[in-house]
């Protein structure tokens, strides 16, 4: 009796679960998504190109991408530091701090948005001292960056933590016993090992920031050409019943997200190969 065919047939329920899975996936996700390329297709190439290269739209990409990039960089630096501290050092309250790292995932983005705006407004707890130093935050690109730092914070830490835990201590000992200083061990042994996961976390934070809306709209002030993000521009177009314009920008943003997703998948593959090796 061939074992493989028994394996396939003995457990019941394949047909019914598979049928439900495919039907639900099609109705909720796939069929609605088809509208995006269809609508863009019916626009014609020149109208599409004119919409997505309009100066105000270009400015929105610039604002979205630069603030997302800066926020991901800040999270890259402090996320690495925090992940290292949380895994390697012990201090009172470590487990509580660790649980709070996921706050930005759990907190509704609108709540984050109004809270950060209030904190960083010119009369806010943090905004007032900064304004006195001549650094306005709310309603400037800096404010958008602050919101995106909050939103992206868990990605770098959560991606790095398991990899730091999996670091082979013997490797560090071997390097140390061969006379390497701690700094050399960190630079030559630890950081190269963490590098793929670090980049993955950075890319995840960056990807999330590009599509972010709720935490940003309040603090950004939404000034065209200056602090208007692409997601906000899509909503503006929709409110003017310019469905084609909204869709065209959405397709550009979605393409950027998918390219990032491919990059992230490649990075994750690299990271897991490195950990397995």
């Amino acid at each position, binding site marked *: 009796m061939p074992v493989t065919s028994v394996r396939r047939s003995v457990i019941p329920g394949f047909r019914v679960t598979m049928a439900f899975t495919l039907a*639900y996936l099609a109705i*909720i*996700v796939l069929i*609605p998504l088809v509208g995006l390329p269809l609508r863009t297709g019916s626009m014609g190439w020149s109208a599409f190109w004119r919409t997505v290269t309009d100066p105000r739209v270009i400015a929105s990409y610039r604002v979205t991408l630069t603030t997302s990039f800066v926020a991901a960089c800040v999270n890259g630096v402090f996320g690495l530091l925090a992940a290292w*501290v949380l895994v390697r050092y012990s201090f009172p309250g470590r487990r509580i701090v660790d649980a709070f790292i996921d706050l930005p995932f*759990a907190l509704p983005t609108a*709540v984050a948005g109004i809270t950060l705006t209030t904190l960083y407004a010119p009369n806010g707890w943090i905004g007032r001292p900064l304004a006195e130093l001549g650094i306005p935050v709310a309603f400037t690109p800096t404010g958008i960056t602050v919101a995106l730092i909050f939103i992206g914070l868990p990605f770098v830490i959560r991606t790095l933590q398991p990899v730091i835990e999996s670091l082979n201590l013997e490797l560090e000992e071997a390097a140390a016993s061969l006379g390497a200083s701690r700094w050399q061990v960190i630079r030559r042994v630890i950081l190269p090992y963490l590098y793929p996961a670090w980049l993955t976390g950075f890319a995840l934070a960056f990807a999330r920031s590009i599509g972010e809306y709720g935490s940003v709209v309040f603090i950004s002030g939404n000034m065209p050409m200056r602090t208007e993000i692409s997601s906000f521009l899509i*909503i503006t177009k929709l409110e003017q019943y310019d469905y084609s314009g909204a869709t065209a920008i959405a397709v550009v*943003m*979605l393409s950027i997200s998918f390219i990032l997703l491919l990059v992230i998948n490649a990075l994750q593959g690299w990271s897991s190969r490195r950990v397995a090796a």
Partner: protein
Amino acid sequence: MSAEAGLIVAEPIAATTSIAPSAHGRRLTEPAAVRWTLTLVSLAFLALSLGVPLTAVFVEAFANGVAAYSEAIREPDAFDALKLTLLAASIAVPANLLFGVCASWAIAKFEFPGKQLLTTLIDLPFAISPVISGVVFVLLFGRQGYLGPWIAEHDIKIIFAVPGIVLATIFVSFPFVAREIIPLMQASGTDEEEAARVLGASGLNIFFRVTLPNIKWGVVYGVVLCTARAIGEFGAVAVVSGHIRGLTNTLPLHVEILYNEYKFQAAFAVASLLTFIALVTLVLKTIAERRTHHH
């Protein structure tokens, strides 16, 4: 602990290279001053980014006293928003739970071509930004949408109405349960289910008696994340809602309206309810995480 254990292993090598063991111990971690600095810098960063905003929500919510707070959260519009939020979540979460269980059963217990593609498609809503998730439904059901004329003829309202909010909520919280339990079901294999089948158990019996005990904390984890997203979703719901008070306002949208009307204290009072739900989510998530690690 592991660093001390490591010392014993490293000692013979230390003897041959004539490095004093004490120097050794120091090299397996950073000097105390560095450790302290790094810890304090990270904690300061986390306090500034997470602790201060969390505190600010509650301080602002109670800025005008307890009476103003309770008035803001008992206001009829806030109550209607709460009802709609709970309605959307109570449809989205069970639907996505059922989907997650079916999808993971099919993917984890059977071999079929295109499995990798199916897993990728399930994750798709994660890659789509909230606003675009809302746009997708406007393109389908909106006034100029593909099904717009048909819907208008039959006097059905989806966009700027409750069905649109429910659909958008289902869409954004779609993958949470499935992606948590697929790997768990794959890890527990098929041997136990096969044995139960051979002994004559029915499909549902196998699932509830054999499979579920192995994955139950994963299910809890997925449901918690799914619920948090369903309750807190803003961008997608903002696109399809039309912000009709008492009708199509969810709690996060109600927070936005209050804030834009400069009713800051009321906005933060409602926001504090959502923050409280977020804190409960964190607690449940931490518990579920510890349980899945122990299994």
